[in-house]
């Protein structure tokens, strides 16, 4: 959670998150600090994906703004019974504000073509290809093997393949899916940062 955002598409509040307010926020999630931390991480991931799926260009910053607003409410003495549901309501407001912002205007591939872009938006670049290979090789070996196995395109035998993989790793199929998605998410973030930095 950040005190403010850098993204101009997100309406920034003037309020700055304090350590005390963040502790209060966590305490609302769970009285146990360790469990509160886990709940926070899960809620954050869900809201990031919420903003992502709804087309926000900077989902992470949208989530920061959402949590800031919730924490501010708590610090003002407001009592929140279900903080997850409350956060969802706040997130919807932040999303609406974000989508109204011209900086968040989405462009389809057709739009991109109409802008006169010289290359299709999904055209692979050398930078992106190198970033992919570097980020994939930077993954721990077991994570790398996991996503290469998990996303095998074996059509009908895909379920069998994943069940077999789960048995080999000694984890339930749901845990395997969760692990594979997080590795994939990590790879995606790495590539995004890599391409922004131009390697």
């Amino acid at each position, binding site marked *: 959670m950040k005190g403010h955002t850098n993204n101009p598409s997100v309406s920034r509040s003037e309020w700055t998150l304090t350590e005390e307010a963040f502790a209060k926020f966590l305490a609302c999630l769970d009285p146990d600090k360790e469990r509160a931390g886990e709940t926070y991480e899960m809620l954050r991931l869900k809201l990031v994906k919420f903003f992502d799926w709804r087309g926000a260009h900077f989902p992470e910053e949208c989530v920061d703004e959402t949590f800031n607003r919730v924490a501010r409410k708590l610090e003002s003495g407001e009592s929140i019974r279900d903080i997850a549901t409350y956060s969802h309501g706040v997130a919807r407001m932040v999303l609406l504000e974000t989508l109204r912002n011209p900086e968040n205007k989405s462009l389809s591939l057709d739009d991109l073509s109409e802008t006169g872009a010289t290359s299709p938006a999904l055209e692979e670049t050398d930078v992106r290809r190198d970033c992919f290979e570097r980020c994939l090789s930077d993954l721990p070996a077991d994570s*790398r093997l996991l996503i290469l196995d998990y996303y*095998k395109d074996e059509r009908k035998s895909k379920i069998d393949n994943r069940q077999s993989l789960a*048995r*080999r790793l000694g984890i339930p199929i749901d845990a395997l899916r969760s692990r594979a998605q997080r590795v994939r998410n990590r*790879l995606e973030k790495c590539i995004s940062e890599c391409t922004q930095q131009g390697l």
Partner: protein
Amino acid sequence: MATDIHPELVYRYLVSDLPEAEQTALEQEFLSDDEAFERVWEIENEMVDRYARGRLTAHERELFERTYLASPVHRERALMARRLVGAVDSEAETGRVPSRARDSVSSWSGLVASLRRDAWRWAMITAILALTIVSGVLLSETVRLHKQINQLDNERASQLRRTEELENEVGSERDKADKLEAELESLREDSRNAEPSSQSSQGQKEPRPLVSFLLTPMLTRGGSEAQQLPIANGTPAVVLQMTVQEHGDQTFQVEVRTVEGAPVWRKGSIKRHQETKNGLLVSANVPAAKLPPGDYILTLSAAHGGKEPEEINRYFFRVVRQ
């Protein structure tokens, strides 16, 4: 329930094709249910991978590109998916690691990861091998112990046989010793009886003046005259002889009593006898001093094979002095 979430619903959500109410309902579900959230995320990845593999229908593809790919975040995701499925499919087709990143999989870390992945299999193999080895050792040890037990049993049986043989030998020797002792005692007694009570005053031995009588059985005082045995004074011993029928190996016993029943002389285990044409001749050397003048009854008994002696005959005689 996450399994109730239909991929079509999620697909429409991701391409902004759901009414607001259904959108909100789905969002509330995955925000409150972790499994529902994972399921929506999975469907998204599957949809992006289908696009990357060119497996969306024309309509799906048109909608996907117009709505989903309007987000720069999603475009990056689709590009990454294209690289990822390319790498995965290439490996599946060639069976080889296709890129620099995947070459490192075959390095030591890849080997370790592979071993870790197959750890359960190695653990099973190790356990089976260990079990086989332990079973083999136990079987070998059992066979060895069985052999030792059999050997000890044979040795014990052999020792028992040897002990039995020795006991039989000892028993046999003891029987022989007993018989010899009896014969020796008999000879000693005969010798004592035969010794002249009166040696010459000069200490010289004189010939032993024995008298011998062949007794006739079943002579009683009431039936006929008693057989008279005249014994001269100075006679040291009287040899009383009886003829009996032969009945195998027999041991004889002689007992002399007065007619009143008082015991006079007794001798058991008489084996010295000789064969005659009328049967066996049994002899008993009775000290003459034991037979003062008077009437006597001699009872002759015989024993077969160690059994109790049975009476054969009685002899009635009268001793007279000359």
